[in-house]
């Protein structure tokens, strides 16, 4: 029989001491305390949630604004003019090729053939004449682009002024000043009629294209013989390039024919323009672009340099301290490396500006190091300088975690290996390191997360040039200045208008960084959990 019914039947006993419990909302004091601590435990979760919420709160609207930005780009005819501009710029690249050819010819003539500069110039007279004609051929198109640029910019400006007025009216209305609000006159921009002069140039453009094609066909035939035999290959390549250039004309024309300013820009374009955009161009008179690729590439390159240095050094030091060093050495090295991790990054950045950049450049001018790609270095502050310092930041992280991982390898593994007659080196390379590999890899990943998120060093030392480095010459891209995702946020956030598209773009970069670091962290934990060797 359950005891409850039993006690209900009996008269309740009386005690001398009646113990009362403090209670709030039906909870005892102890339970209240537990709830309090439990609530605090959620603080990490809450903060992660808050970070996500507030980043999106400020940043999410970027995509709408960027879509609007791209729509205006199309409606005002800027996109149309850019088709022509691209054609013109391709020609400029060809002219640059010619110029480079001439430079090489001159240096060839003066150094190998022993001619003076005047003589070389004289010999190249016919070449110069040709280069001049080649450059002039584009004249009409260039003029057309310049004219249309003005027209399109005017339309865009008109639209922007209208937007400002609309905003003003809304502000007045929300402030309750209706009369004044109604006084603000807004004339909507009629894009169809505004854009007509641009579209009207179409026939002239097509006609011009035909002339151009014919002209270039003629010019290709007239390419002068190479000034020096060594350059024959380059001249042939130039001819092929010109032919390829002329061949692109029909496709450009087709694109322009298919172009319609009324076509709306889908929302995914605003996304892809950010994620795959190759230009980060702000406050420009023509068109602002918010493409994260150059910044991402910059971050990636700096991190690659850092990890290239930090992985061998960090893991090597960890193996040394954990497996080889004597106890006294361990006691000395471990706190020292921990001490390095306490170096503030801004001090390291300052060191990069004041000392390391100059030192690396001096090193790059040493003659017997010229075989290294990219040497001598042109810019003091570049991806390499920042990467070296970031390496120093990543080393303590990688060292500490890798050392932990090696420490966790069961002793029995090592003993068994020795018992089978393996040497110390064999035990380390074949038993201990492979057993701790998952931990080491996750250490490296966490080091990468630390490096990608580092701000001050890259802001001060990476050179801050927003461009995708030129990879055509291989590794020398690593000594070019770059800009990074963290750097751009730190640099531009202080200067932007709150609520503007640029401001929101920076928040979207922040969102990107946030999820990137979460992803790296998640991967690191996954690897540890998946491949951990169970001790037992």
């Amino acid at each position, binding site marked *: 029989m359950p005891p409850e019914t039993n006690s209900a039947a009996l008269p309740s006993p009386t005690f001398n001491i009646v113990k009362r419990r403090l209670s709030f909302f039906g909870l005892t004091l102890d339970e209240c305390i537990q709830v309090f601590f439990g609530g605090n435990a959620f603080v990490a979760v809450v903060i992660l949630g808050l970070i996500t919420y507030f*980043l999106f709160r400020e940043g999410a609207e970027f995509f709408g604004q960027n879509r609007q930005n791209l729509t205006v780009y199309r409606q005002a005819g800027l996109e149309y003019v850019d088709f022509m501009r691209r054609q013109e710029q391709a020609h400029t690249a060809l002219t640059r090729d010619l110029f480079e050819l001439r430079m090489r010819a001159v240096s060839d003539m003066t150094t190998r053939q022993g001619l003076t500069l005047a003589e070389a110039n004289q010999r190249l007279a016919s070449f110069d004449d040709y280069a001049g004609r080649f450059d002039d051929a584009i004249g009409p198109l260039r003029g057309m682009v310049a004219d249309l640029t003005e027209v399109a910019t005017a339309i865009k400006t008109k639209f922007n002024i209208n937007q400002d007025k609309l905003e003003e009216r809304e502000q007045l209305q929300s402030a309750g000043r209706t009369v004044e609000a109604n006084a603000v006159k807004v004339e909507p921009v009629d894009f169809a009629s505004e854009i007509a002069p641009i579209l009207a140039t179409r026939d002239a453009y097509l006609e011009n294209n035909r002339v151009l094609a014919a002209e270039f066909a003629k010019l290709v035939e007239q390419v002068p013989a190479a000034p020096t035999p060594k350059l024959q290959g380059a001249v042939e390549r130039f001819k092929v390039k010109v032919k390829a250039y002329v061949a692109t004309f029909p496709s450009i024309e087709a694109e322009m024919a298919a172009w319609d300013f009324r076509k709306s820009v889908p929302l995914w374009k605003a996304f892809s323009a950010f994620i795959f955009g190759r230009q980060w161009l702000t406050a420009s008179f023509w068109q602002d672009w918010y493409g994260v690729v150059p910044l991402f590439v910059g971050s990636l390159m700096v991190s690659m340099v850092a990890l290239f240095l930090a992985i061998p050094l960090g893991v090597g030091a960890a193996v040394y301290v954990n497996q080889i060093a004597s106890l006294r050495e361990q006691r000395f090295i471990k*706190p020292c490396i921990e001490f390095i991790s306490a170096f503030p990054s801004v001090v390291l950045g300052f060191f990069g500006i004041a000392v390391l950049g100059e030192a690396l450049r001096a090193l790059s001018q040493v003659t017997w190091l010229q075989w290294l790609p990219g040497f001598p270095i042109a810019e003091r502050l570049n991806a390499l300088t920042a990467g070296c310092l970031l390496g120093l930041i990543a080393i303590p992280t990688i060292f500490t975690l890798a050392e932990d991982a090696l420490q966790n390898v069961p002793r029995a593994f090592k003993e068994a290996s020795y018992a089978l007659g393996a040497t110390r080196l064999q035990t380390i390379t074949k038993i201990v390191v492979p057993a701790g590999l998952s931990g080491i890899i996750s250490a490296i990943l966490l080091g990468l997360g630390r490096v990608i998120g580092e701000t001050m060093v890259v802001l001060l030392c990476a050179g801050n040039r927003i461009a995708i480095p030129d990879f055509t010459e291989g590794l020398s891209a690593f000594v070019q200045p770059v800009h990074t995702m963290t750097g751009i946020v730190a640099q531009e956030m202080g200067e932007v208008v709150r609520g503007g598209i640029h401001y929101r773009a920076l928040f979207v970069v922040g969102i990107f960084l946030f999820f990137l670091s979460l992803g790296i962290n998640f991967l690191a934990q996954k690897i540890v959990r998946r491949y951990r060797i169970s001790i037992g």
Partner: protein
Amino acid sequence: MSAPATHLFQAKPSFARTAEKGVFWLFRSAAYLVLLCGALVFADIVIKGAPAVFTTTFPFVNTVFLTEAPESLYVFEHEGAKREMGDREFRAFREQEAAKAAAQGRKAPEIKATSFVYSAGGIFPCIVGTVLLVVGSMTIALTLGVASAIYLSEYARQSPLVSFIRLAILNLAGVPSIVFGLFGMGMFVIFLEWNVSLLAGWFTLAFMVLPVVITASEESLKSVPKGFREGSLALGATKWQTIRKAVLPYALPGILTSSILGIARVAGETAPIMFTAAYVVRDKLPWEGLQHAGDFFFQGVMALPYHIYVVSSKIPQNEYTERVQYGTAFVFLFIVALIAATSIALRNKLRGRYKW
């Protein structure tokens, strides 16, 4: 010297042995190369920064640099001698010269001076700001972090919810500092309308070090032996009494020492305070010109790391600016290093003290 003793079981030189030695030297050089790089950076800052902070005469410390606000430096030639003056001194000097000239009935001489911002005076406001930021944010972080750690180590049982909390803590530790800066700006500065203020900086920094504090506290709570808790509970103490009397006192030294490393991190970060708490320049000290006591929390401050960023990126590098650049970096590195060294030393000492 006698030849080494030879005997039957002596190891013979072999390729494997030589290779092993070579590889071990590689590992050794990796470890010492890291230390060398760290030492180089440290030495450079100390050697070039110490002259700005220490002097050869009594009291051996450059009190002006440590106790005054930054000023512009004016460099000019006067009566054939090159002179360097701070802003106030320069103005006084100019007036004095003008007065002298007026007394002699001449026209006041025009002094052509080159000026360098922030290069004269000292860094006192920055030190004050950094101390305020560290104290406030660590108070918040310790309160939240220790409470969270107590729950995780004393109350929580193995459950999906708890592992979710742990996952969140781990992930929070990996969030880049600049993202914390953006978050602090979005939440405290804009949404809560605290503007650029101490309070916004405190919370931003506190949230950033929270994972460090929680992990450290939990570890030291876990290292208190189970017997302490069981003994206390067996004597009839409640759970809270047990925690308060039998667990926390023994874990507290560990919690504090490990949290000092968190302090070093808070003091060293620049990115989170750039948009939330730091001003490039502010001529008032935090306790000057307050209308209400509450205003204290809603003012921005100057901070050492941000000052280093400003003086190293916004002004040119030359013999006149080097003093403030290296001097600030030295003072800052010295403070952070002191904190870190204290923490490491204390921990090594504590490790040996409690044995149970």
